[in-house]
């Protein structure tokens, strides 16, 4: 028995309801997604591995529970994809790198376990930039992901596969990670919703670390309501992650549905300067008009240190990465170079063969910034500027409830367009890294397309642990778009 569902537009709530009401079995829904992956994904390259056995076993458990009238979780039967930097027992975890080729983690990340406990059917592992380092998904050792909205363009990065798979109807929702923009930017490029939760809101146990003071896990979905549902499942403290927060988890679905009238929206002038694509500027201005019409008051705010966010980020993120990535040495898992006679040679050769150019570049930069004689000039200086950037936000949030700005300066660019110039690629993160450094929550919501048909996203930034207000504004943006 199967009702025909449109996989490309299927919402999380519609998928769950269909399964719960017995109109579609979870097994059939998973099988349909696998069929579509087989047909469509060769052009997109979003999946690195499929976890068919685990998915079908879970789907059967859900279907049995549905038949016997057991209570079903909030994600019952919903097909979900997982970025390949998260551990999922039985499936490979490559982090988009050759150095982890063949590695199968013997445990589940907390977020993976939580999704499955809520009834989700986990379809497989999604392509990404190597160790989540990149803004275009072109740094994956397993080939780039193509943007489903324009196949000659990048999907954004580093969670390119997570955004593309949701946009292309290859899963209903997905998990990504964001260190400097890696959820919000690909969400904007692919025209889906992406949420960066507050630092500490979602457990990172089982995440392959890039920059530990910045790394966060969050969902990609097709609607703000779906993102709220995902966040309710994902959020909360975890015994296995000492950086996870004990702050109470709100009812995000209820928060997201509240009207926005009376909310104060901040517009940071520094995010509308030179280099912003005029079509994106116009789309964001329309969003502000819509929010005004919905009863929000719009206020200019200043985030004066914005222009220092990218250099600050590239010191702190690479310094932490140089430390985190020292664990990849060919001893305990993954690739080991052959023909090395000494331990030192084995380390070097394994890392040389295993890491790609961008990862080496960042390890070198981070090692340099931390090395004797340079620590104060680079690392300590960047940490001080990080304080200033965070104070910028704390000051702004004393006056407004949420901030609205662009996610990216341009729409999705062409594959190969920026690969030769690391600085051009790093400047892609200009509107996303400050929120990463400050630890506040943020999201990208689709707000139209360019004349060429490329998606545009608007960024909504919220106070620390105030995902509720951020989602509320997101819903208002979505409602106004639907009314166009």
């Amino acid at each position, binding site marked *: 028995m199967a009702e025909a569902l449109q996989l490309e537009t299927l919402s999380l709530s519609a998928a769950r309801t269909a399964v719960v009401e017995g109109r579609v079995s979870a097994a059939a829904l998973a099988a349909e997604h696998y069929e579509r992956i087989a047909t469509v994904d060769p052009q997109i390259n979003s999946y690195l591995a499929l976890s068919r056995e685990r998915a079908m076993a879970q789907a059967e458990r859900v279907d049995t529970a549905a038949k016997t009238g057991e209570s079903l979780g909030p994600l019952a039967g919903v097909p979900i994809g997982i970025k390949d930097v998260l551990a999922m027992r039985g499936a490979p975890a490559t982090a988009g790198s050759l150095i982890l080729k063949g590695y199968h983690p013997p445990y589940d990340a907390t977020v993976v376990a939580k999704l499955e406990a809520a009834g989700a059917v986990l379809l497989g592992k999604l392509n990404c930039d190597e160790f989540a380092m990149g803004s275009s998904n072109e740094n994956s050792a397993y080939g780039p992901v193509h943007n489903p909205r324009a196949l000659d363009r990048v999907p954004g990065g580093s969670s390119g596969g997570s955004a593309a798979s949701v946009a292309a109807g290859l899963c209903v929702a997905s998990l990504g990670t964001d260190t400097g923009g890696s959820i919000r930017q690909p969400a904007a490029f692919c025209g889906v919703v992406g949420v960066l939760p507050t630092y500490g809101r979602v457990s990172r146990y089982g995440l392959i670390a890039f920059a530990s003071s910045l790394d966060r896990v969050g969902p990609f979905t097709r609607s703000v309501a779906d993102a709220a549902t995902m966040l309710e499942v994902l959020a909360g403290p975890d015994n296995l992650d000492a950086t996870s927060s*004990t702050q109470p988890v709100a009812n995000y679905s209820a928060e997201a549905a509240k009207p926005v009238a009376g909310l104060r929206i901040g517009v940071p002038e520094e995010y509308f300067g030179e280099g912003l694509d005029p079509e994106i500027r116009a789309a964001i201005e329309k969003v502000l008009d819509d929010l005004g019409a919905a009863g929000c008051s719009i206020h200019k705010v200043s985030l004066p240190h914005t222009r220092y966010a990218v250099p600050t980020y*590239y010191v702190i993120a690479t310094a932490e990465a140089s430390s985190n990535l020292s664990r990849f040495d060919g001893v*305990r898992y993954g690739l080991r170079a052959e023909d090395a006679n000494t331990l030192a040679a084995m380390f070097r050769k394994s890392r040389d063969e295993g890491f790609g150019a961008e990862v080496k570049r960042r390890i070198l930069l981070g090692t340099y910034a931390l090395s004797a004689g340079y620590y104060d000039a680079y690392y300590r200086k960047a940490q*001080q500027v990080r*304080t200033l950037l965070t104070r910028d936000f704390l000051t702004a949030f004393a006056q407004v409830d949420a901030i609205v700005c662009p996610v990216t300066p341009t729409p999705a660019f062409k594959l190969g367009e920026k690969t030769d110039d690391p*600085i051009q690629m790093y400047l892609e993160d200009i509107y996303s890294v400050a929120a990463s450094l400050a*630890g506040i929550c943020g999201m990208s919501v689709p707000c139209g397309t360019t004349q060429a048909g490329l998606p545009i996203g608007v960024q909504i930034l919220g106070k*620390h642990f105030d995902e509720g207000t951020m989602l509320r504004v997101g819903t208002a943006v979505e409602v106004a778009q639907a009314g166009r």
Partner: protein
Amino acid sequence: MSQAAPPEAAGVSLAEVQHVADLANLELTAQELPRMARDLNAILGHIAELSELDTTNVPPMAQVAEMLGITPATHGESLRVDAVKPSVDRTAVMAEAPETDGRFFKVPKVIER
């Protein structure tokens, strides 16, 4: 001291890049070395903009919670109780190792005799 200026931005030599690569246990080929030196110098030039800012008396921020005043005293202990619990099975862990005798990880010779 807090105003330490970054060293001459365009000044990382090939030898310095090689030294940093050694510190990071990275092997760079003859082709990679000049390219990495070029990229590193370009990025460090961009990072040098940070020296425009006066950060005298600005405390360094290592992570977010400290900025929000979140401490175990105000928000509860986030560390789990230190109790013995079963961990991941050793067989499953060792199965991932490139070379093992089942109990230990095996590596090439460390000490020359």
